[in-house]
């Protein structure tokens, strides 16, 4: 039986993990390589590296880091942030990324998903979408969740999958940062309209939130989170043991 994936997300700027990370026993907690290795050793099923640098020069630092990560950590790596063209896909795939996550780049150029899926395969293209309720409907937001595009989120996601996105990351702006649990209603709506794997993001505050996620929406394939792992509030090992205890299939590290 396929296991449910637990995916920590690392925001990287100038070659360092941002968002205060607080771990005992790690020499350099803001090193993407050390932190990635720590998560991998503790049972992370995949890692997402989000490039939040702005300038072209900093992009080189990011790809150098990515290459180092991919030479030492042998689990799937997804890269997002600043992916606007096929050249961007090429740049990160050559450095060891397995999947590439598109968000604003696909909003600016909807053809990007189709082009990338055609060249690299559906399995390589992850559509990441920031969604917020506006007047009772789900709307797509861009620019890191600041700007309402006016697009209907369910239509947008359906179209992305039709164009070749092999996986969806659904980030609920409504639950993000609140730590009150995942947005089960929104996730359920998305799982109903697409048949590719859906990854839940936004809202995880404690272990029980993941138990509820997979128990209540068994269609969800994975849970993604950042701060609860970074701050050491929840270790992936403990989380997976608890999921296992609740009858949710997970990969346990021996």
């Amino acid at each position: 039986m396929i296991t449910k994936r637990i995916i920590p997300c690392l925001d990287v700027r100038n070659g360092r993990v941002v968002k205060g990370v607080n771990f005992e026993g790690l020499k350099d907690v803001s090193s993407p390589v050390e932190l990635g290795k720590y998560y991998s050793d503790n049972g992370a099923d995949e890692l997402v590296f989000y490039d939040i640098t702005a300038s072209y020069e900093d992009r080189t630092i990011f790809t150098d880091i990515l290459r180092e990560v991919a030479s030492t950590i042998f689990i799937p790596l997804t890269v997002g942030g600043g992916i606007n063209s096929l050249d961007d896909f090429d740049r990160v795939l050559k450095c060891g990324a397995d999947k590439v996550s598109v968000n604003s780049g696909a909003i600016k150029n909807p053809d990007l998903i189709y082009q990338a899926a055609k060249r690299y395969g559906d399995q390589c293209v992850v559509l990441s979408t920031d969604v917020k309720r506006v007047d009772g409907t789900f709307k797509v937001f861009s620019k890191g969740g600041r700007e309402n595009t006016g697009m209907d989120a369910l239509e947008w996601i359906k179209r992305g999958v039709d164009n070749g996105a092999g996986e969806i990351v659904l980030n609920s702006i409504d639950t993000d940062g609140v730590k009150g649990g995942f947005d089960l209603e929104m996730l359920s709506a998305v799982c109903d309209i697409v048949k590719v794997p859906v990854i839940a993001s936004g809202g995880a505050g404690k272990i029980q939130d993941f138990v509820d996620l997979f128990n209540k929406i068994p269609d969800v394939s994975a849970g993604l989170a950042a701060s609860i792992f970074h701050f050491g509030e929840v270790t992936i090992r403990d989380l997976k043991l608890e999921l296992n205890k609740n009858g949710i299939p997970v990969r346990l590290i021996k």
Partner: protein
Amino acid sequence: MIAIVDYGVGNLFSLVSSLKKIGVDAVITSDKMVIENADKIILPGVGAFEDASRKLFNSGLAELVVNQAKQGKPLMGICLGMQMLFDKSYEYGEHKGLGLIRGEVRALKDNLSEKYRIPHIGWNALKFSMPKSPIFKYLEDGDCVYFVHSYYATNCTNSVVATTEYGFDVTAAVASGNVYGCQFHPEKSGDVGLKILKAFAELE
């Protein structure tokens, strides 16, 4: 030395890095001399079957790989590289494979109910056929590996050495003499994957 066949598809960075990590000498190459002189061959691949097989046949590397395998050199196909070992694939039409292992490649969706998501992405447990294939000698029952695929090998019962449960027993690995294939990605399957690559590297 292991030759990783470079025919213009796929991300080979992790594969060569993972072999390096376990102390195995490997080179990414399309040079026929290098492939002929290697002890073993890995045929990687991601993306679409038609595009990949066209590149492999047009470059002349298909013929070389088949000949090398027929001379007894250990060969491992990974993911799409495994699917290429078969007679044919029905991914968007009908396309010829290398014909090193009897069987064919078909769409998962044709054999799955609505509740199974496609692609089959994620970590899934291996069930081994007995006697256990030498490439799994360091593995234990229930070890998980990383899959990402929408097509699977079928009508190949005699060569199946591991399956995984995803709605049905999906072909996870095959072997026929010196020719091996993994549907999953050993180079992305953590320590379990490294153990498979190590066992392959140790084959005589």
